[in-house]
């Protein structure tokens, strides 16, 4: 039921802008991840959405109703923080059924709700244990169960997995998504971890420096990011700066340093445009053919990544690019290679006015 709208909200602390004027709509039953570097305003955004903070400007609507002035305790939401907040002297069961909603019920109802939420997070078997007897992953599951036990339709998760070990994080990602979908909740999940955002959410909202810069389904954001920052932040990318030399029919010919040229789709480009061509390490390859979209280079380094290896190739344009190739691919002793950029696998952006390095900065 909850459809959340933030209309031109901003939060300022004196001269500091924690969140610049921002609008965002979250549909009913949507799982949205808010992703961005530390300090970009993620927590601020969800504090405004949840009513913990009042916006300096703008309004918050829930299902069309203006709730901007409604205090947080009168809103119907569940909250899970990065720092796990469980009562140490209470067992799993008591922790999970502690919420105010549950308290107002009859015993059978409490039994029913407690059983249901602990079952959802796979912790029913540990109902009698105390937090100190649980791993941090299990503790976070109990915190989630408690948030769910309040029957809130809107679940707000602020870095819920950040304190946990890598493997545990993977399992919990899936558990979170499953619970949200099974119960038909709306979820807003804040994280600085791009992989986590992509794997839990229906839609990822990318933030930077107090603003939302783009949003979309995970696969769209990964395959076709609208800006260079996202292309780099959500998975790594190689960037080559060049300029459009010629346009012929559907193709633009982009020239790089030392006169090397790549052919790219011409859509939206004009001759003379300064551009940045981006390609992920797994989108480009080494080739033997000397024609087509290739730039020669020399292998400078190699990093073993398990099933793949990442080659550091110094192109003759003097750009250093990473190319992922299968670990089994052996390199001939001559380190001179041709790097192929397939037209379907490269992205073209206008060259950022503030400079590429500045546009990519992670902090």
């Amino acid at each position, binding site marked *: 039921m909850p459809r959340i709208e933030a209309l031109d909200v901003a939060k300022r602390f004196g001269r500091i802008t924690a969140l610049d004027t921002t609008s965002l709509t979250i549909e009913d039953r949507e799982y949205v991840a808010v992703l961005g*570097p*530390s*300090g970009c305003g993620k927590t601020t955004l969800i504090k405004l959405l949840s009513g913990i903070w009042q916006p300096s400007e703008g309004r918050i609507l829930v299902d069309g109703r203006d709730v901007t002035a409604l205090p947080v305790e009168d809103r119907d939401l569940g909250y899970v923080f990065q720092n796990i907040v469980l009562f140490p002297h209470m067992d799993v069961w008591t922790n999970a059924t502690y919420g105010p909603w549950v308290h107002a019920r009859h015993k059978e109802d409490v039994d029913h709700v407690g059983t249901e939420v602990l079952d959802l997070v796979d912790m029913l078997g540990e109902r009698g244990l105390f937090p100190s007897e649980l791993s941090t992953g299990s503790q976070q599951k109990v915190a989630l169960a408690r948030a769910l036990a309040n029957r809130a339709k809107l679940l707000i998760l602020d870095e819920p997995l950040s304190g946990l*070990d*890598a*493997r545990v994080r*993977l399992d919990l*990602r*899936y558990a979170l998504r499953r619970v949200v979908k099974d119960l038909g909740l709306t979820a807003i999940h804040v994280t*600085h*971890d*791009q*992989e*986590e955002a*992509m*794997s839990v959410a229906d839609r990822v909202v990318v933030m930077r420096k107090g603003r939302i810069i783009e949003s979309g389904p*995970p*696969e769209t954001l*990964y395959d076709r990011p609208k800006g260079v920052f996202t292309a780099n*932040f*959500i*998975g*790594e990318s190689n960037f080559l700066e060049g300029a459009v030399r010629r346009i012929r029919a559907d193709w633009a010919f982009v020239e790089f340093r030392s006169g090397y040229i790549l052919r790219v789709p011409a859509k939206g480009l004009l001759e003379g445009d300064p551009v940045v061509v981006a390609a*992920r390490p*797994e989108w480009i390859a080494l080739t033997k053919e000397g024609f087509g979209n290739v730039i020669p280079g020399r292998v400078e380094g190699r*990093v*073993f*990544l*398990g*099933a*793949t290896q990442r080659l550091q190739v110094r192109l003759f344009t003097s750009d250093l690019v990473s190319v*992922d190739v299968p*670990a089994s691919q052996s390199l001939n002793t001559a380190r001179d290679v041709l790097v192929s950029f397939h037209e379907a696998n490269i992205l073209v952006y206008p060259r950022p006015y503030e400079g590429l390095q500045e546009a990519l900065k*992670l*902090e």
Partner: protein
Amino acid sequence: MIAGLLDPDAGRILLDGRDVTRMPADVRQAAFMPQTYSLFPHLTVWENTTFSPQVKGWSESDRDVLAREMLSMVHLIDRREAFPRELSGGMQQRCALARALAAGSGVLLLDEPLRALDARLRIELRSELRSLIRHVGTTAIHVTHDQEEALVVADRIAVLRNGELVEVGPAEYVYSHPASPFVANFLGEMNFVEAESFPADGGAVRLVVGGTNLMAPAREGLSGRVLAGIRAEVCGVLPQEWGAGQGVEGIVKRRLFMGRRISLEIDVPGMGLLKAKPLTANARWAKEGDAVFMTMPAEHILLFPVPKGGVAAALEVE
């Protein structure tokens, strides 16, 4: 113990062949960079970097040259007048590194140096760290719980478990010749199944598991009942009707998009839930509920003795 912060109960520590076991930390040639950066908050970036050379009595001009070089290397030369609180997390981390490097020691000890940073920043800094340490030419010991970080930064990996060194070797070797299921699993998600093995031609064995035959490279001294392991990231998926090569049929139970790769859990009759982590380009089509053929290349199957206490116990971290 290498840094001299803790005394060993037994054994000795040698640096360049010299016994330093009883030598206090501050005179050893080992610089320790702890998990929390511990920069001096009231000193600038420049002063933090020149602190140790100054204590050692270096002349001012020598200190300047050194600090300039170190700070240029970590891209902080323009911020040399800043105080730690004015720096972002990544910058503080770089400054701590510059300070540790400027301590001019033979060994750099890094204890989870990237842990406090954002996920994406960690990826960027770990490559930077590797080239930096190469460039300086110092010996480094880098402690991490992140296997990808270990693969990327190190020449050699030492896997510790319960206070015991279980394997040491170059990343590629440890990855492809893990000494135990624990080590294998630590360097990337693994599938383990118990199987009956039968000798086959050409240094191979035939494994029978849940009614399926799989070929695998033989391992000396192992026969009969074995534990077979295969990494999730070497397993691919094909539509079931295209099934070709070695593999098993199953149904996709869960799918997580992770960017470069897609993480799949596949229910395989007779084997249980198996994991595959193919590159996105090869597996984008696979959805939950799809019937798939999960490829398991023979050359990537690892064999182990069946662990006495069960597989789960053999993989346990604590």
